[in-house]
């Protein structure tokens, strides 16, 4: 049983479980908003509400999964920081997941198949793009390229379906983590936010008058 958090677009929090006998994945609770400006405000209430709605005690969780992006940095960090802290608090592992993979899983389980291009807004007239080729034997999406940043008018033609996502489901983040755990394939991603962009800085133009 996992708590899952994603703030790569809006804010999404879920509790998911995988039945050990049947392998069935269940989302016990999911709550969130597509508001991209209020991650810090809403994250606590959503965690509290998702746990309450799932009816489970936080000590029953076996880990905390988080979407590592890509996504706009300020909001993205809120979810990762929260997931890390919650994992620390319950002394369970932190499970990083690529947010685009969760979008792909959602599409494939909803009935899409074949090549899939996942596109999300990266601001500054750029998109973040990942390419997938269906699900593998463990039920995990096969990412064949990305995520990478591409100017908005230069997104390559999709080999199959192009899907422009505005939300990432924490339920899907949690399910990916459960599937990977069951298949012995953790870690799925590095424990580092997927920024895809160096920090914006104005290097100092130090005027050296005396040295």
């Amino acid at each position, binding site marked *: 049983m996992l708590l899952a958090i994603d703030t790569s677009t809006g804010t999404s929090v879920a509790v998911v479980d995988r039945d050990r006998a049947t392998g069935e994945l269940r989302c016990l609770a999911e709550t969130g908003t597509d508001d991209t400006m209020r991650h*810090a*405000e809403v994250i606590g209430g959503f965690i509290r509400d998702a746990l309450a709605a799932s009816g489970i005690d936080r000590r029953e969780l076996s880990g905390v999964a988080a979407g590592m992006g890509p996504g706009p940095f300020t909001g993205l960090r809120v979810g990762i920081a*929260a997931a*890390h802290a*919650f994992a*620390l608090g319950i002394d369970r592992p932190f499970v990083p997941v690529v947010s685009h993979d969760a979008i792909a899983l959602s599409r494939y389980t909803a009935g899409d198949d074949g090549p899939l291009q996942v596109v999300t807004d990266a601001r500054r007239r750029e998109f973040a793009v990942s390419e997938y080729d269906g699900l593998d034997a463990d039920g995990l999406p096969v990412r064949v390229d990305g995520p990478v940043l591409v100017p908005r008018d230069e997104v390559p033609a999709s080999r199959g379906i192009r899907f422009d996502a505005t939300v990432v489901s924490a339920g899907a983040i949690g399910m990916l983590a459960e599937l990977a755990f069951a298949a012995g394939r953790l870690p799925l991603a590095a424990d580092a936010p997927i920024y895809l962009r160096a920090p914006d800085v104005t290097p100092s133009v130090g005027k050296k008058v*005396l040295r």
Partner: protein
Amino acid sequence: MNRDAPLILGIETSCDETGVGIVRGTTLLANTIASSMDEHARYGGIVPEVAARAHLEALGPTIRAALAEASVTLDELDAVAVTSGPGLAGALMVGVGAAKALALSLDVPIYAVNHLVGHVGADLLDTTAPLETPTVALLVSGGHTSLLLVRDLVSDVELLGETIDDAAGEAFDKVARLLGLRYPGGPEIDRAAIGGDPRAIRFPRGLTQPKDLVAHRYDFSFSGLKTAVARWVEQREAAGEPVPLADVAASFREAVVDVLVSKAVAACTDLGVPRLLLGGGVVANARLREVAVERADAAGIALRIPPRSLCTDNGAMIAALGAQLMMAGHPPSTVDFGADSTLPATEIQMAASVA
């Protein structure tokens, strides 16, 4: 839960220091800090995105280190406290997100507190003499320059004045840069000022003219001073004369220190409050402490300066303020607060739940 001496973990991420402190009532158990200062040095100043990235990386390890230093475990905590403002928005949000999740994971209350008032709270830690109120507090760092009147730490703080442009620490950084010195500017200016004459050049004291004092009696301004130093240096160079670095550094520093201490002492005298507390990273400046001691003595003002490790931004001061709120029976914050980059000093705690 122990209301007499609660065990509180405080998280501070308002600027470039990732601070985690643990206190039991007014007893300091841990004060762990990870700084991204070295990364900012490359850019000659604090870059908000660099600071926020560093906070995210450092927070988990810093919490673990603080727990080890305090020899306590998370399940012993009575509450979590966090800086919710003022500060850099993106940096604050890392701490706010983590603190909320940590409190929920432990099922303990959370206190969202004011960074500036936290600086005053630092003075309660590890001291035998309790903080007496009312007191005037002068808080000076690279991010803020504020003069507060603290009638009661947990319920009555008034903002007397603040900088209307650059923070004092920022002025040190900018002047250091134009003198060809490195970042951070405070220690560099101090080094350069050795042997210099603080009265060699009369640099302007911002907002001290009678006409300014009407509207800005306790406010500060350092951008004019920075410009004056730049102009003075340029004129020297244009005239082909050498620039006396030690004198420029000493005179600049004297102008900053003079105006800071003058206004703080004036506030004490005007308001009949014979107590002055210093806080913030710039308090590490030896000349500031020296002049403050001199003039406070002369004016019969009791001066308090917390140890340096509690003056710079840290999580212990945030934990200390959280502990004071809890000990005074203030209800915790709800989990719905955000980061408020311009949180006024009067707002000691954010989103207090209705008792």
